[in-house]
């Protein structure tokens, strides 16, 4: 009898003798158990068949293909992940103060949140900006705001992540111009621009232009940066917002990788060599509460991306195969009720990200279901990462959950279901088509709807929301953004427009327009010339809107 047969026999005996006896006396709480994303969960998992052969093929060693166990051989034994708190609000001056505070508290990288007008290409004095200036991030209208934002922060010493998509080229240009003024060479600049437009159409909503010119801007950036800003991550392909919109863990990975495939295809189509840009692609995922499902998700994502890059795109350079990712804990898991409970949720999610092998992490603050986080809440969130890093011990061995029967089963199952989605999207004609047809949006919305229904009828328990509730006093000390902020920004814009060389601005914008009209031109140099003479973000986007048109949302309900 083979070892595998012995195992099966032993399992049957266990079921008949030990288990059934227990079940007859103590039935289980539910007939079916599932993960947070509704994958079925068995009572117990046992070693799979051909356990060792499977190890060599599917897991291998960290730092080796298919990177299931991590992208580096030593992981956190070498260097900890980057602790990077997403922050920004109000004016550039206020945000600059918050960044300096976070750096003093031991944060190791910056992450800039921009307000919605900046993200959608409107100046603060635009009618569309009413009520939104400085609210969810910092307001940037011209290079002057960027100069203030990084005042006293030497750009060669920090890495800066910027959550900016449709106008990513403009903010990157401003960052480069700030570097120039600080005397920092562009080749020394380190950081990431999100620059992931496809998920904006699906889940996040800060699109400006239609897919085709948007994809052009993205590949322009890939090309430009590989030569001039080689240490910058040119994109952060994001599942985070897909998950926040209500997707399952499987959908988060599937749609993110499908977006990644679309960007790679598009860059190759314009003539770029895959290995010239693939090493600068980075990813961004969510960490939710189902700890083990999330760990399996990260491991599956790494394995799938390595296979995609090797087998589909024939990348040769090892760096092109690595799925390097940032993680943020799940905003939608935070509750407005009993907000201190969120600290515990964030701790579980931090563990998920770290046990899943993240390269950087943002931990949410307990009060974010209520308002922008206060300074005290941000500190607790950062301390959560520091406690996991320095006290929990989970960092001492690489991929410490690897080999858990359950984790390996979930990793395989998530991978299997992701491939099914990828095949289906390929059949539809790629991600742009799948978005245009509303397929992706519908899949996410159905998942979100069922999730919420489960909470409504208490099949899913959210502590403090549909169980264990208490009467509580309204929370105090929430951060408030000054409603007068728009006036301050408008005054700044007026002053700049009086003092800059307006003829030069006009000329440079004209050059930009004519370049935009020629599909073969790379727009980055023209955008740089425009920001350097203090053309506003809105002025630059207006030129591009004129030439490219605007995206119209396809509403799927």
């Amino acid at each position, binding site marked *: 009898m083979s070892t595998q047969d012995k195992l099966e026999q032993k399992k049957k005996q266990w079921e008949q003798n030990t288990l059934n006896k227990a079940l007859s006396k103590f039935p289980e709480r539910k007939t079916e158990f599932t993960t947070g994303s509704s994958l079925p969960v068995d009572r117990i998992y046992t070693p799979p068949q051909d356990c060792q052969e499977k190890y060599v093929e599917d897991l291998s060693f960290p730092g080796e293909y298919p990177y299931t166990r991590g992208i580096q051989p030593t992981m956190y034994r070498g260097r900890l992940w980057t602790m990077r708190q997403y922050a920004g609000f109000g004016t550039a001056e206020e945000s600059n103060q918050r960044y300096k505070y976070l750096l003093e508290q031991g944060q190791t990288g910056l992450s800039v949140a921009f307000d919605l007008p900046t993200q*959608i290409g409107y100046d603060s004095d635009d009618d569309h900006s009413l*009520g939104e200036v400085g*609210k969810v991030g910092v307001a940037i209208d011209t290079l002057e705001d960027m100069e203030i934002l990084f005042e006293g922060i030497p750009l060669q010493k920090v890495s800066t992540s910027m959550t900016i998509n449709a106008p990513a080229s403009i903010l990157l240009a401003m960052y480069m111009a700030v570097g120039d003024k600080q005397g920092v060479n562009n080749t020394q600049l380190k950081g990431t621009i999100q620059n992931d437009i496809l998920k904006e159409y699906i889940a996040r*909503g800060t699109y400006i232009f239609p897919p085709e010119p948007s994809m052009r801007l993205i590949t322009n950036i890939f090309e430009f940066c590989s030569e001039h800003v080689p240490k910058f991550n040119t994109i952060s392909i994001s599942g985070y917002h897909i998950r926040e919109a209500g997707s399952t863990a499987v959908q988060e990975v599937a749609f993110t990788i499908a977006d990644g495939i679309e960007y790679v295809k598009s860059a190759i189509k314009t003539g770029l060599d895959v290995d010239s840009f693939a090493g600068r692609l980075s990813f961004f995922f969510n960490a939710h509460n189902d700890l083990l499902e999330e760990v399996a998700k990260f491991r599956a994502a790494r394995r799938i991306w390595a296979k995609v890059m090797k087998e589909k795109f024939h990348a040769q350079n090892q760096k092109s195969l690595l799925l390097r990712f940032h993680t943020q804990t799940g905003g939608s898991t935070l*509750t*407005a009720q009993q907000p201190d409970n969120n600290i515990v949720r964030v701790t579980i999610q931090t563990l998920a990200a770290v046990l899943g092998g993240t390269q950087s992490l943002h931990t949410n603050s307990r009060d974010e*279901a209520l308002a922008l986080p206060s300074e005290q809440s941000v500190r607790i969130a950062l301390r959560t990462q520091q406690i996991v890093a320095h006290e929990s011990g989970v960092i001492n061995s690489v991929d410490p959950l690897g080999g858990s029967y359950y984790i390996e089963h979930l990793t395989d199952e998530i991978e299997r279901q992701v491939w099914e989605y990828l095949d289906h999207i390929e059949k539809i004609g790629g991600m742009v088509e799948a978005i245009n047809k509303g397929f992706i949006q519908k899949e996410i919305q159905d998942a*979100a709807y069922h999730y919420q229904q489960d909470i409504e009828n208490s099949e899913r328990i959210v502590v403090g929301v549909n169980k264990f509730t208490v009467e509580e006093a309204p929370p105090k000390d929430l951060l408030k953004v000054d*409603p007068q902020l728009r006036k301050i920004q408008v005054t700044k814009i007026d002053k700049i427009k009086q003092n800059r060389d307006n003829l030069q601005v006009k000329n440079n914008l004209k050059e930009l327009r004519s370049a935009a009209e020629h599909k073969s031109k790379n727009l980055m140099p023209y955008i740089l010339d425009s920001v350097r003479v203090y053309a506003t973000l809105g002025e630059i986007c207006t030129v591009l809107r004129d030439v490219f048109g605007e995206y119209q949302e396809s509403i799927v309900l």
Partner: protein
Amino acid sequence: MSSKNVRILIAKPGLDGHDRGAKYIARALKDNGYEVIYTGLRQTPESIVQTAIQEDVDFVGLSLLSGAHNELFPKVVELLKQNQAEDIIVFGGGVIPEEDIPALNQQGIKAIFTPGTPIKDVVSFIEKNRKT
């Protein structure tokens, strides 16, 4: 009590892209038998009021998570008044700090539903305030 013929517009004012809640409410209200119209993202108060009047709705539900509610919610009420449509009842939801709610109520936003509100609370609000 029949929910027939009650028409509800669910709208996203401002530039905020968080539409999970708005879409959930729209679909759940539809499942409760109401006629529901959803505007999509990036609506100005003007365009919301125009749609509300054109579609002859009884309720407008505004969803906002970006913090611009103090500016944009009252603007919708004000424009409804200016267009002699003050009989349309306005309610809202999203990330709205507790301390902002009294002022919003005073300015004519009839109810604010914060995260975690069960759909039955929204339904009972509509049933209580609908024209019979």
